[in-house]
């Protein structure tokens, strides 16, 4: 353990910590990376942590997250029983599993696997040693350490994370699953970094899960950079199921070359404060992006989805559909920003955010935004916030369906518009079950989190079993 982030610590704590441990942090770096880190900590020193005075953080207040004390661990933990921590229990989901515990890559055998088809996957720290040139070509090229304070802090401090490389023309035969588990006996502040590189004409399905196994508070600042080469295709799933005392700032930067295809799904089931910063740039024409999100919040949970799409080249298509159900005192933010640059003719973009507020105390701030600098585009955006459709409720009840079941049926149907887009069948079935459980308020850590292993399956109590028909 290298430091304790005290309550309401300031940026000076981090800049001091960086100076003190710079030698250890940068030990595995290639020279340019150390320069990136030095620049990043300087940028962070200038900006400090974002406050609600900033437009991008107006409706997300980190005060409570910073009111706790956290351990900062700069060296990997020893003696982890990998078998015990990671054993996926999604029936029939055949994936290559990559485990992360508290941000550190953990493996059964080797920290970096090189598969027969040329795919490399494993620890980023290990890949930095073995493939520095491959990493240098991408790392820090897409993530924005200049204007994003959390990304800058992550760049300065990250030690490990996941690295995946899919060579040109290779199609990954099965989905790859990253399971990032937070399990620590004290409060933890962690910063991990992931890099995923898809070569030309390659294909990958990636399931990225964030889970916690206990109720200990945590603060994660995770940055993921994903590069898609020409004609590469990525099916990306982000599952978030963290405890109510956890803060997760997740920033994912997608860079897409000519005719690359991306489908990204954000499924946020639980968490204290979740901020999904999704930034995607078309770096060539004919790219196609679809980003879907579903979030189910209750208690005092907060979700903030920030989606920025940069149409820098002509003939690209992007679509966003984010839907949320907010209960009790929960709150949500959706900021969608589509930038269509001057030369990006024949751009096709739509954004949609829909919210259902189940109580008068739940709230949402939704701002879809288009910024367009040419005339030859087809863009649309929309946002709705409301209650469950009362006419539909009446209709269902008139057929003898009780109020509670009718609500479930409607909420599930509402969520299903997003869930039905999940292309991996066993994953979709599992998410369907989880959403049903979540809507009934049953989903709890160590009981039904996506990947928890050692607890036997709880019987499904859901009265409306959609899967049987």
């Amino acid at each position, binding site marked *: 353990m290298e430091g304790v982030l005290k309550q309401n610590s300031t940026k000076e704590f981090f800049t001091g910590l960086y100076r003190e441990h710079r030698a250890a942090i940068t030990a595995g770096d290639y020279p340019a990376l150390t320069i990136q880190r030095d620049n990043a900590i300087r940028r962070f020193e200038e900006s400090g942590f974002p406050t609600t005075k900033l437009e991008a953080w107006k409706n997300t207040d980190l005060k409570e997250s910073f009111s706790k004390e956290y351990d900062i661990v700069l060296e990997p933990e020893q003696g982890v029983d990998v078998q015990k921590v990671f054993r996926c229990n999604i029936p029939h989901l055949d994936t290559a599993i990559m485990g992360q515990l508290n941000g550190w890559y953990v493996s059964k055998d080797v920290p970096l696997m090189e598969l027969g088809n040329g795919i490399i996957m494993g620890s980023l720290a290990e890949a930095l040693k073995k493939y520095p040139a491959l990493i240098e070509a991408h790392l820090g090229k897409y993530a924005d350490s200049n204007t994003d304070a959390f990304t800058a802090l992550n760049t300065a401090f990250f030690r490990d994370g996941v690295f995946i490389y899919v060579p040109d023309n290779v199609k990954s035969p099965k989905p790859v699953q990253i399971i990032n588990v937070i399990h620590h006996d004290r409060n933890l502040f962690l910063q991990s970094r992931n890099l995923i590189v898809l070569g030309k004409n390659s294909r990958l399905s990636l399931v990225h899960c964030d889970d916690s196994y206990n109720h200990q508070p945590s603060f994660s600042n995770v940055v993921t950079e994903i590069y898609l080469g020409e004609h590469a295709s990525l099916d990306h799933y982000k599952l978030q199921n963290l405890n109510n005392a956890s803060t997760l700032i997740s920033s994912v930067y997608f860079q897409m070359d000519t005719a690359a295809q991306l489908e990204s799904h954000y499924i946020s089931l639980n968490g204290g404060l979740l901020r999904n910063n999704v930034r995607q740039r078309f770096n060539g024409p004919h790219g196609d992006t679809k980003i879907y999100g579903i979030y189910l919040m209750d208690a005092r949970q907060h979700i903030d989805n920030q989606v920025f799409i940069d149409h820098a080249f002509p003939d690209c298509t992007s679509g966003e559909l984010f839907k949320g159900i907010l209960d009790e005192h929960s709150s949500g933010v959706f900021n969608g920003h589509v930038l269509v640059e001057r030369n990006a003719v024949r751009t096709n973009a739509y954004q949609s955010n829909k919210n259902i507020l189940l109580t008068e105390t739940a709230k949402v701030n939704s701002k879809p935004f288009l910024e367009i600098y040419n005339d030859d585009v087809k863009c649309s955006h929309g946002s709705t916030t409301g209650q469950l459709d009362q006419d*539909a409720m009446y*209709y269902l*009840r*008139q057929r003898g369906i009780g*109020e509670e*079941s009718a609500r479930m049926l409607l909420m599930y149907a509402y969520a299903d*518009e997003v869930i039905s887009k999940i292309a991996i069948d066993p994953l979709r079935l599992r998410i369907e079950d989880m959403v049903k459980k979540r809507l009934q308020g049953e989903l709890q850590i160590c009981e039904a989190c996506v990947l928890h292993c050692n607890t036997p399956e709880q019987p499904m109590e859901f009265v409306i079993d959609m899967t049987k*028909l």
Partner: protein
Amino acid sequence: MLLSIKNLHASINGKEILKGITLDVNQGEVHAIMGPNGTGKSTLASVIAGREVFDVTAGEVIYKGKNLLKLAVEERAREGIFLGFQYPVEIPGVSITNFMRTAVNEIRKYKGLDPLGGGAFLKLMEEKKKLVELTSNLANRSVNEGFSGGEKKKNEIFQMAMLEPTLAILDETDSGLDIDALRVVANGVNKLRTKDNAFMVITHYQRLLDYIVPDFVHVLFEGRIVKSGTKELALELEEKGYDWIRKEQEGKGIAG
């Protein structure tokens, strides 16, 4: 007596719509409720079904010997009251199959019966689909989503067939139907008629009553039943129009 309505007054947002309805319905009977637009026909249907936006300010409704007004919408439905909607609601994401399976089993649970298993349920669906000539394609879709007017009304009759109500209220089921769809809908109703159930058929036009022959016809005007008779009354209305009723009422000094 299946249903007994006495001096029923109901209002919405302080505006009185029903101004003293009295009506008795026995098992095995078909009652047609006719009348011009805006006289309270749909309100009467909604109040019997239990829609909460209406306030019952006076009167009583006794159904199967119970005070109907005390029951929630779903309890009324489980007691055998079915409302065929004038404007069936579209519910994206809920398949008709799943919707009906949930409804059938919640009603069975209320009656203390075991839920229908998957096989038995599907068999029941097949049987009832034939009754209203509902295609399988339609049954697999979301409830009413993207359905034509005719398909929506067929779907209402299909649901009625599935739930086998004791009292079915059809609220302008004929509106917007072409002659073929009208025949399908009417045939469905006629096949479901038994000595144990009853129908209240709300309609503007006499046309539907050529297919569903009523035992009684009531004319609703300004929140009251102003005339009751047999099926011949419907023909008379068709001939003379609602102005006839209006003039007659004005003559009595009730309206205005």
